[in-house]
């Protein structure tokens, strides 16, 4: 008997949002048993969330651009016909091919796509097995290629259930009021119900037979029942949506729950048929909207029903080396194949996109790797390359895909449908690259599509082009595509509020961005809009309003991690550190690998004095996303210093020289920054300056500037070379400092009237006029500096008043020395002060 077996069960579209309430009621006892004795978690899907692409990713550990399955249908080898995707569409090896090469036996039942069956060591019941047609007079025989090996055709052929075999005992648990259905009506729900149920029973029959009768090491069984029932009947699931027919709601409102219950019953039987040494995985490829985001009327776009697919599916695993009753985080479809290969102690291809989910195992070993399984020669149980003569067609599957709305009914003029399918597949490929954040490749494909002759509607490409440009932070191009989009005529009603507001946000036109979202919230209020408004209010430094919007978002969708993270930040800004910590924790509970939430938790705990845990939270943020959370390094240093302070009972954090620190002299223009630079130069510090701006009457001793500072908002990469040096950066540019460095900021303050007066003298304007708008803008900028410093753990700041520096120099120099943490030559520094320079004083300061 084989040991260490793996049974992988696919439940297309299964979603925790439906499962948990049923488990609470004890209506999914088999899955509940697996959770109790195993691990569970969310399964993150990929874009576009089209099932054949996703299940091929599960089987290969690779993204669709590599495995080649790009949608539901494709043009066949003859180039003259459309057909559902087949095994030939997959260009890379699946788990069962690799296991075959290594001498393992695999059984495969109903995998999408798996027709024609591959000649592997084991049994393949392909996804054509269950397609029996709907006419009792035309029962289809099992076609060649449906089952491998051929001798299993005889054993399995009578396990197919036909739709006309359904009895009232089968459908009443799903539709208790089925007696009221007019069966003569063309669109009665019993027809699709019968087809879906019997197809899944056929596959289940084959699976239970193989579980009982064959020896295997790996077995994969796929069910589409939940997905197909959801597409047909989710609109009738409680709570009743406005616009849903009451009679139909009452008829079908238990359909979805019944589908899950029946799926669980089938799981129960399979669990009975396995040994204790078998590892079982139950997983879905995506979730399914079941709340107020359900779409009642699908737009006429390619694969529209997939718009109802939710980002997170489900994952449960149970077995001898699997942890017990533990939640697992960060799972993705690409991780399944590497994890199964690791389970069999086989190496993972470095060209696979996923990782081994080591977290699920009790005892772990180090994963082994090879460059690629694709380069390994030998027998992998694969099909011969398809030839023109063998071009396959599959009318039943095509019909069902059309019925489900995934595929448009082919046009009478087949060339039109072929042209459209080619465009859709290419568009899907662009979306795959978009999902992988390979924006340049995605953009290239989308531009090719835009330039293709004969395209009737460019809007789907324009929307993705806008998203690509946002990803590339190329907001000018994004705006160009937005304007082009607005000129396009299309039958589809798109919601582009988020894209539009994101473009304005990227261009730092926050008010415009807010206007777009405010409009959206009035037309169709939803949680995501409120969340985005909240985020904008955080940027606009209005945490109170931000908090109100986050609260509204949480009220509608309490299980969204990012909503709680936003709320945590708003609470933090308002000084509610306990609330901030609590919302951060809720956020982490929902999505463990959420670096921004860990960082916010660190900040909140630091304020609450829980330094040890603050340090752990910062470390987690840094570990999860090292590139984005440079500032976590600084925060950790600060906490460590504070922890030392507690031991030594003295303040060490100030006055300590920090390795590679950058000394920044800042302030509003004409507040004494050049003077301070001169003083620090004389003090013996290493200055980062160039001589591009020459001394003049306004600054007779020079400006001490460095030209790249002027474009720091576009390029701050030069900051690495500023380490251990002193550089002048005016106040409005401070926000562009890279948080990965440590900064000591000497911020020059001067009476604002004096600053403006001095600026006006310098630019030849009347110094006696005070521009109120400019004055208010400066006040706001100074407030922002405080907020910025509070947010950046790598920044220490000391404020030096220009007038006080002239009058009480020694004391001010001590403050500067204490900040920088180095010995400074005070005598030399004082020589830089020329009281004659203090010219643009106001009457107020004179007095």
């Amino acid at each position, binding site marked *: 008997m084989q040991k260490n077996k793996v049974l992988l069960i696919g439940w297309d579209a299964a979603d925790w949002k439906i499962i948990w309430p049923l488990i609470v009621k004890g209506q999914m006892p088999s899955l509940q048993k697996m959770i109790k004795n195993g691990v569970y978690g969310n399964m993150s899907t990929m874009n576009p969330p089209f099932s054949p692409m996703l299940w091929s990713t599960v089987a290969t550990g690779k993204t669709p651009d590599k495995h080649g399955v790009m949608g539901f249908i494709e043009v066949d080898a003859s180039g003259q016909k459309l057909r559902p995707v087949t095994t030939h569409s997959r260009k890379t090896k699946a788990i069962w091919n690799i296991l075959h090469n290594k001498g393992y036996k695999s059984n495969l039942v109903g995998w999408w796509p798996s027709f024609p069956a591959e000649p592997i060591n084991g049994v393949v019941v392909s996804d054509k097995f269950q397609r029996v047609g709907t006419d009792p007079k035309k029962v289809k025989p099992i076609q060649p290629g449906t089952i491998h090996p051929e001798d299993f055709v005889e054993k399995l052929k*009578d*396990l197919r*259930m036909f739709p006309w075999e359904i*009895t*009232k*005992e*089968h459908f009443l*648990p799903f539709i208790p009021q089925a007696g009221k259905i007019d069966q003569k009506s063309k669109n009665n729900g019993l027809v699709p119900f019968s087809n879906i*149920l019997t197809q899944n*029973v056929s596959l*289940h*029959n*084959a*699976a*239970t*037979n193989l*579980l*009982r009768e064959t020896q295997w090491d790996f077995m994969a069984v796929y069910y589409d029942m939940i997905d197909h029932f959801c597409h047909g009947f989710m609109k009738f699931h409680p709570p009743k949506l406005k616009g849903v027919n009451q009679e139909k709601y009452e008829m079908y409102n238990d359909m979805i729950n019944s589908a899950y219950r*029946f799926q669980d*019953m*089938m799981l*129960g*039987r*399979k669990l*009975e*048929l*396995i*040994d204790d040494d078998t590892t079982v995985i139950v997983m879905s490829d995506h979730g399914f909207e079941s709340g107020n985001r359900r779409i009642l009327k699908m737009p006429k776009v390619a694969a529209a029903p997939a718009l109802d697919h939710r980002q997170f599916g489900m994952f449960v695993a149970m077995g001898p080396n699997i942890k017990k009753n533990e939640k697992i985080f960060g799972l993705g479809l690409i991780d399944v194949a590497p994890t199964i290969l690791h389970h069999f102690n086989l190496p993972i291809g470095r060209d696979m996109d996923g990782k081994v989910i080591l977290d699920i195992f009790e005892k772990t070993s180090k994963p082994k790797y090879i460059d690629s399984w694709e380069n390994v020669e030998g027998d992998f149980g694969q099909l011969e390359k398809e030839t023109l003569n063998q071009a396959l067609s599959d009318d039943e599957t095509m019909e069902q895909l059309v019925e489900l709305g995934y595929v448009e009914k082919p046009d009478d003029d087949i060339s039109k449908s072929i042209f459209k399918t080619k465009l859709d597949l290419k568009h899907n490929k662009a979306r795959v690259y978009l999902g992988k954040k390979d924006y340049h490749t995605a953009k290239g494909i989308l531009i090719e599509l835009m330039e293709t002759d004969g395209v009737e509607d460019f809007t789907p490409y324009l929307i993705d082009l806008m998203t690509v440009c946002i990803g590339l932070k190329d907001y000018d191009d994004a705006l160009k595509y937005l304007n082009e989009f607005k000129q396009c005529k299309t039958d589809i009603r798109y919601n582009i509020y988020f894209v539009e507001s994101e473009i304005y946000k990227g261009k730092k036109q926050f008010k415009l961005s807010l206007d777009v979202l405010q409009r959206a919230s009035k037309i169709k209020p939803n949680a995501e809009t409120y969340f985005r408004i909240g985020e904008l209010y955080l940027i606009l430094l209005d945490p109170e309003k931000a908090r109100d919007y986050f609260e509204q978002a949480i009220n509608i969708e309490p299980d969204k991690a990012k909503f709680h993270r936003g709320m945590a930040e708003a609470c933090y800004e308002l000084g509610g550190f306990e609330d901030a910590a609590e919302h951060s924790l809720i956020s982490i509970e929902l999505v463990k690998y959420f670096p921004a939430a860990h960082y916010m938790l660190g900040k909140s705990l630091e304020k609450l004095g829980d330094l040890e845990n603050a340090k752990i939270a910062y470390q987690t943020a840094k570990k999860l996303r090292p590139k984005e959370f440079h500032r976590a390094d600084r925060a950790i240093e600060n906490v460590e210093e504070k922890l030392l302070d507690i031991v030594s009972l003295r303040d060490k954090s100030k006055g300590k020289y920090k390795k590679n620190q950058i000394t920044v002299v800042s302030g509003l223009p004409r507040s004494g920054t050049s003077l301070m630079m001169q003083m620090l130069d004389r003090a013996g510090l290493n200055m980062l300056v160039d001589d591009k701006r020459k001394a003049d009457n306004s600054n007779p001793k020079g400006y001490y500037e460095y030209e790249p500072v002027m474009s720091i908002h576009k390029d701050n990469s030069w900051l690495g070379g500023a380490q251990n040096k002193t550089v002048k950066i005016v106040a409005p540019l401070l926000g562009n400092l890279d948080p990965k460095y440590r900064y000591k900021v000497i911020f020059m303050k001067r009476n604002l009237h004096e600053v403006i007066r001095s600026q006006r003298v310098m630019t030849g304007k009347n110094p006696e006029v005070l521009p109120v708008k400019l004055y208010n803008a400066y006040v706001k900028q100074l407030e922002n500096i405080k907020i910025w410093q509070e947010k950046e753990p790598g920044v220490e700041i000391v404020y030096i008043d220009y007038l006080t520096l002239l009058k009480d120099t020694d004391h001010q120099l001590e403050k500067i020395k204490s900040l920088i943490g180095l010995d400074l030559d005070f005598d030399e520094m004082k020589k830089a002060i020329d009281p004659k320079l203090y010219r643009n004083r106001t009457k107020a300061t004179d007095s």
Partner: protein
Amino acid sequence: MNKKLKEIDFSNMPVSSSLGHLAYGDLAFVAWRKIKIVKNLTKQNAKK
């Protein structure tokens, strides 16, 4: 498969079957088909 498992006797399965039977898989399904054939034969014989 699990050797400790006791298979069920389906001889008393009603011809209308049940979801439980469908969930049980191939064994119950094959048994049900047989019962349906016997029942049909009986019906036909009765008609004669």
